[in-house]
């Protein structure tokens, strides 16, 4: 084939859609046939810049031998050509002895078959991609034209290798960019931090083909249950290294790999590559990102520059993550503020309502005293048997009722100072129960007690506490129409990580209609025929004054449980309460 046709054929192959290795092998086959060369071999660089025999013509016999060895740049003839970037041509006779490394033991008795050797760098003006080696048995000279032709060929092959490299690295860049874009989308979404972190771990793991990805957040930053967000399962054999790397990354404020923490031999024998990078914003470490991948896996992204990649990702997510966390905090704070404001408005509304109620009650009281007072005088003057006296009794009864309502109202709206003392809740419960159950109407009520005998004392006004207990117990009694079971339990509890004593009183009175459950603590709200609607309102106010609160658990159709929470003594001192 004339050189032009040959070149044309080679260019055609190099531009074809075939796999890289088949393209190169085809080209090497053509060279072998056309240049009368039994061996046409290509060395390329490994990741560690060592030359390895990677491609050969189909009929090559040396390939299997040579491909077991690797050499550094400058080492042996191949290394020397790579270093000098200029071709070398030898006959068997004039190969310098210092290039002896060509003579691997397995080559004994084989090299002698060849008369001619040619070594050409696969390079363009700036990059070197490998070395082309030719061995010919049937010729011992190369004409200048052949040499020129070979150098053109080697450039072409270098070009193929180069474009392949470029494609690989752009593929890698594109996948990195895609990862970052996907992360960006998640980071700018309004997701909750927990969801966000899980999502981030998932995206990174998927795009890097990682065994697992774990994000550890600094404790002070996120006061939530989970501090670690992992996609995949942390290999038990890697567990210790993960913590070690996280610690190192946070301390050094840069990405670290397993190589920074373990000796080389260990790292070489290790199945995984492991990287950890700090997630830092303005030099404040929010947490760490750790990625683990199997060495044998198909993940070119986590090779030599894994450290670079992981710190890019960590930097990228840090500000978004911080924003999300701050946002969440802000949202929580705004909600708390809103709640506080609502409470304040309620209190204010309530205070003015209270003042109004007090003044109305006061105004009503005088006429009531007058009506009642004179009616009593009238009663004394009328014969007890007369019908008029019956009417007068009715008036007096109603006056008495009105008076007791007024007293209750005034009792509710007035500010009662606390007389705080150290109280044993269990004792108070027993005292109140003794008082109530001695009444005949309690005969058919079973009282089940489950006291925590180690319940710490609370600081409270015992009279007021008893009033609360009586109110709730009487409500239970009435709800059950005098028949059923009241279960009373005391226990230690925590609310917003502060210790509380909890008293729960459960009845079997059928529960409260869920539609009105929110109203039970409202003053003047009642379901009883003759009630002021103040019992629970007063109870609630008393417990609130004690810096506690009352919860209601309602199972419609079954019963209601009122739970009184009072701050445990070691938390609220008497002074604090007063």
């Amino acid at each position, binding site marked *: 084939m004339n050189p032009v046709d040959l070149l044309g054929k080679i260019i055609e192959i190099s531009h074809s859609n075939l796999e890289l290795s088949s393209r190169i092998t085809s080209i090497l086959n053509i060279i072998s046939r056309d240049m009368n060369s039994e061996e046409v071999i290509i060395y390329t660089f490994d990741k560690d810049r060592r030359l390895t025999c990677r491609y050969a013509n189909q009929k090559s016999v040396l390939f299997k031998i040579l491909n077991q060895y690797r050499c550094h740049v400058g080492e042996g003839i191949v290394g020397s050509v790579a270093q000098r970037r200029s071709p070398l041509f030898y006959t068997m006779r004039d190969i310098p002895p210092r290039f002896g490394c060509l003579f691997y033991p397995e080559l004994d008795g084989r090299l002698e078959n060849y008369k001619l050797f040619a070594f050409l760098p696969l390079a363009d003006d700036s990059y070197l991609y490998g070395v082309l080696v030719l061995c010919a048995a049937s010729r011992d000279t190369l004409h200048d034209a052949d040499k020129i032709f070979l150098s053109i060929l080697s450039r072409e092959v270098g070009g193929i290798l180069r474009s392949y490299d470029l494609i690989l690295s752009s593929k890698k860049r594109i996948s990195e960019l895609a990862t970052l874009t996907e992360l960006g989308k998640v980071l700018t979404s309004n997701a909750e931090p927990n969801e966000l972190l899980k999502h981030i771990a998932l995206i990174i793991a998927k795009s890097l083909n990682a065994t697992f990805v774990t994000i550890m957040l600094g404790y002070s930053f996120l006061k939530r249950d989970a501090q670690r967000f992992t996609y995949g399962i942390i290999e038990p054999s890697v567990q210790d290294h993960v913590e070690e790397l996280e610690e190192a990354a946070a301390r050094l404020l840069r990405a670290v790999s397993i190589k920074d923490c373990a000796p080389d031999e260990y790292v070489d024998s290790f199945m995984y590559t492991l990287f950890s990078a700090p997630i830092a914003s303005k030099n404040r470490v929010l947490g760490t990102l750790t990625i683990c991948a199997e060495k044998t896996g198909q993940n070119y992204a986590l090779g030599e520059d894994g450290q670079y990649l992981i710190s890019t990702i960590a930097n990228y997510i840090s500000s978004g993550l911080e924003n999300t966390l701050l946002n969440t905090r802000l949202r929580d704070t705004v909600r708390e503020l809103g709640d506080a404001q609502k409470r304040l408005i309620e209190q204010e509304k309530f205070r003015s309502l209270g003042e109004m109620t007090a003044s109305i*009650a006061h105004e009503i*009281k*005088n006429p009531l005293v007058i009506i009642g*007072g004179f009616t009593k*005088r009238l009663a004394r003057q009328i014969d007890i048997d007369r019908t008029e006296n019956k009417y007068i009794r009715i008036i007096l009864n109603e*006056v008495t009722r009105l*008076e007791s309502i*007024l007293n209750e109202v*005034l009792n509710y709206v*007035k500010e009662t100072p606390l007389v705080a003392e150290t109280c044993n809740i269990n004792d108070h419960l027993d005292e109140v129960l003794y008082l109530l159950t001695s009444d005949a109407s309690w005969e058919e009520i079973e009282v089940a007690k489950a006291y925590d005998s180690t319940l710490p004392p609370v600081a409270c006004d015992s009279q007021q506490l008893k009033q609360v207990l009586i109110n709730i117990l009487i409500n239970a009694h009435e709800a059950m129409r005098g028949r059923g079971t009241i279960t009373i339990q005391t226990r230690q509890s925590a609310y917003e990580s502060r210790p509380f004593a909890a008293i729960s009183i459960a009845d079997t009175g059928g529960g409260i209609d869920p539609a009105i459950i929110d109203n039970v603590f409202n003053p003047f709200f009642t379901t009883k025929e003759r009630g002021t609607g103040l019992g629970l309102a007063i109870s609630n106010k008393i417990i609130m004054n004690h810096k506690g609160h009352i919860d209601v658990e309602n199972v419609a159709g079954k019963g209601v449980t009122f739970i009184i929470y009072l701050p445990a003594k070691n938390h609220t001192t008497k002074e604090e309460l007063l």
Partner: protein
Amino acid sequence: MKNARILVVDDEENIRLLFKEELEEEGFEIDLASNGIEALDKLRGGHFDLVVLDIKMPGMDGIQALNEIKNANKNQPVILCSAYGEFKQDLSSWVSDGYVVKSADTRELKQTIKNILGI
């Protein structure tokens, strides 16, 4: 001291009347005043064994009147009487000898009076 002299001070006419009739039945001699100033006038004009003083009154309220009365004669017995059990009294003021919540049922008032008068 069955026929003790008692001054009932209340701005509400019918309350005054009720208390007068109820207390006269007990054998007391009752005089009336409709506010603090009038009460002080009456006290200057004659001797009373006891003053029953309403707290909420226009002009001079019961607490002020109590202080004036006790300043003039700290041994003058006074019972405060109010529609409900809350009133603000600063620490420098005088303390009354008794306190009764107004009620259609006058037994508590009568009993408190008798206790103070030693009957």
